[in-house]
């Protein structure tokens, strides 16, 4: 059974059709990629699935449950973690607090605990912190735990964001251009991290990427999106040689 199943998802922004008849099946542990030129609607698809926008038509099932119309935080708590293209870290919070915050849905002490500092709260906060430090360790940023995030170099910020997404305990992780703006060295590190995450935690990953090299190396199946429509779907080799994909990326070759 598919972990994430999307059928006939279509979305309009006013009169503009941003996504048309989009279908997706992600099996547990599978790595899938979504590529396409700028403005093709890749991030819109992410936002539709994660609940930021509600699709005009179509069905989305996560782990067998319909999630269309649910609040983003409910969808996230059901096991859909994500990162953002533009990071979206909380600029006044420390690295450790970022990762702790992502455990929000697992907090059981409630408002009474928060107001009066009950022993239960102290216990739970300690557990949350331990878990957060483990994740920071895994992302190699544990030495930065007490820093406010704006002080961090870009690559480290990316890793903090990844740790934060993992702290929600996702079953499937959405990565929106995880290597945007990275230099080659950071890029290699990030690819290593994605591999580790997959091997250690066995997560399914759904990846938007611009850099074809990375997608080709990591993904099992790739979709190519142009103007909100999937024009090709298949394993990397197939996509690499698909004339429609080449046309979308490089333009038509004119043979005289």
């Amino acid at each position: 059974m598919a972990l994430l199943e999307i059928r006939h998802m279509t979305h309009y922004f006013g009169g503009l059709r941003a996504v048309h008849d989009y279908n997706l099946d992600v099996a547990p542990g599978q790595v899938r990629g979504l590529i396409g030129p700028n403005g093709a609607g890749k991030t819109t698809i992410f936002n539709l699935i994660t609940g930021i926008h509600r699709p005009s038509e179509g069905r989305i099932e996560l782990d067998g449950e319909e999630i269309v119309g649910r609040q983003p935080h409910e969808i996230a708590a059901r096991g859909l973690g994500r990162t953002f293209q533009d990071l979206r870290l909380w600029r006044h919070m420390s690295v450790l607090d970022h990762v702790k915050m992502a455990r929000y849905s697992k907090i059981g002490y409630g408002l009474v605990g928060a107001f009066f500092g009950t022993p239960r709260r102290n216990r739970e906060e300690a557990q949350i912190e331990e878990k957060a430090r483990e994740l920071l360790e895994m992302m190699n940023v544990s030495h930065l735990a007490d820093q406010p995030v704006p002080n961090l170099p870009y690559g480290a910020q990316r890793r903090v964001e990844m740790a934060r997404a993992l702290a929600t305990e996702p079953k499937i992780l959405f990565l929106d251009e995880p290597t945007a703006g990275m230099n080659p060295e950071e890029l290699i590190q990030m690819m290593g991290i994605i591999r580790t995450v997959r091997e250690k935690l066995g997560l399914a990953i759904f990846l938007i990427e611009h850099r074809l090299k990375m997608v080709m190396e990591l993904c099992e199946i790739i979709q190519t999106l142009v103007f909100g429509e999937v024009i090709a779907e298949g394993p990397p080799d197939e996509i690499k040689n698909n004339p429609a994909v080449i046309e979308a990326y490089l333009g038509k070759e004119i043979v005289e």
Partner: protein
Amino acid sequence: MEEINDTHPSKKKGALGGLTSVFSGIPVLGWLLGALVAVILEHYLGDPLVDRIGLDKIPVLFGAVIILKKPLMIPGAAVFLLLIYVIPIAVVARAGKSFSNRLAGKLMEFPIAVPTLVHLGLLYGAIHIWSDVSAYRVLTLKLMFVAIMLTLSLNVINGYMGEFSCSHPGFMALGAYGASVFTVLLFSSDRLFGDPLLPEALGPFLFPVGLIFGGLIASLGALVIAIPSFRTRGDYLAIISLAFLFIVKSMIENLEFVGGPRGLSGQPNYANLPTVFIWAVLCVWIINNFVRSTLGKALNAVRDDEVAADAMTVNTRRTKMVAFMFAAFWAGVAGGLYAHVLRYVNPGTFGIQKLAEVLAMVYFGGLNSVYGSITGAVSLSLLGEALRPLEIFKWIIIPLLLILVMIFRPTGLIAFREFDVRKVMQPKSNSDDEV
């Protein structure tokens, strides 16, 4: 309290640097003991000393009034301050340094509640003896504690959650009227409500219930702001909250059963200094607990990036609702205390002027910080009293000061600092040994 706040170690050189190094390494406990000695001195030796130096009476607010009103008495006031406050505090704090450090260390071995209560007890002792000298001091202190509660609760919305809410005097009014109606109806004979319904002896015991009742009414009122805040942010929410303030004000003005624009009087005298102090401490404790928990830090996440907060499983609607209702509750309790301190309320009090006052305290002290709110509320409310003799010029000097702070520290004096009680009370390592 001022003396305590002025003890941050700084690295300035010269005479000032020498002075700070002499006084570094003294724990808060040491300063509290010093303050206690000073106020006891004033209590017993104040009047004879005043006669000797030729002052009319003990300078009420550290001589501020004398300096501004009767310049000829400045030398006398200076001598008084020096002999009663500066020298005793400095001597006791410095001489008792190793003792207070050892004592603080001993206290920290107990559960955190023990040293906290000891510190609070000393603080209250000093305040109580200080306030014994005149009724004016008592009133100033009570209003100061109310201001701390108001500022801190507004900081929850404006600082921690980053929404600009203008409705705080409205919440305060709801709490003030809620609590007043509760106590006046039940415990005092009044022309509006008639004879008391319950024996008056019960009053002081049920006063907390009245305050909580007022607070709950205020937090119900906060729903009016919290629900629109799901969809709007920033300027629009500020306008909505301003509208709420005016709605509450004109609603009370038109409610004849609470006296309409003439106001409501006859509140029993329940809000004595210890009561107000305890409520203020309770407020600081609970708010500080909340903002340091992960549930409370969700406010910061919502402020800094709501979309990201949502994607990280933070229930943003619940967070906003809790923040507004929680802050309004404390504003309501503060309002209830305010009404019982003055033993009279009228709707005119809770207008734009009050709003400006609280906002100034929040932004002056510093956003997102319990320290900041306490500093802002204490300094501005004492300054407001100290500059009272200047009359109209007071309203030029205080805003000017605010502008200066905003230029040099745009987020306020002490912004984005966590208030860790444990750190505050810890014995200071002896810097002499290290050098």
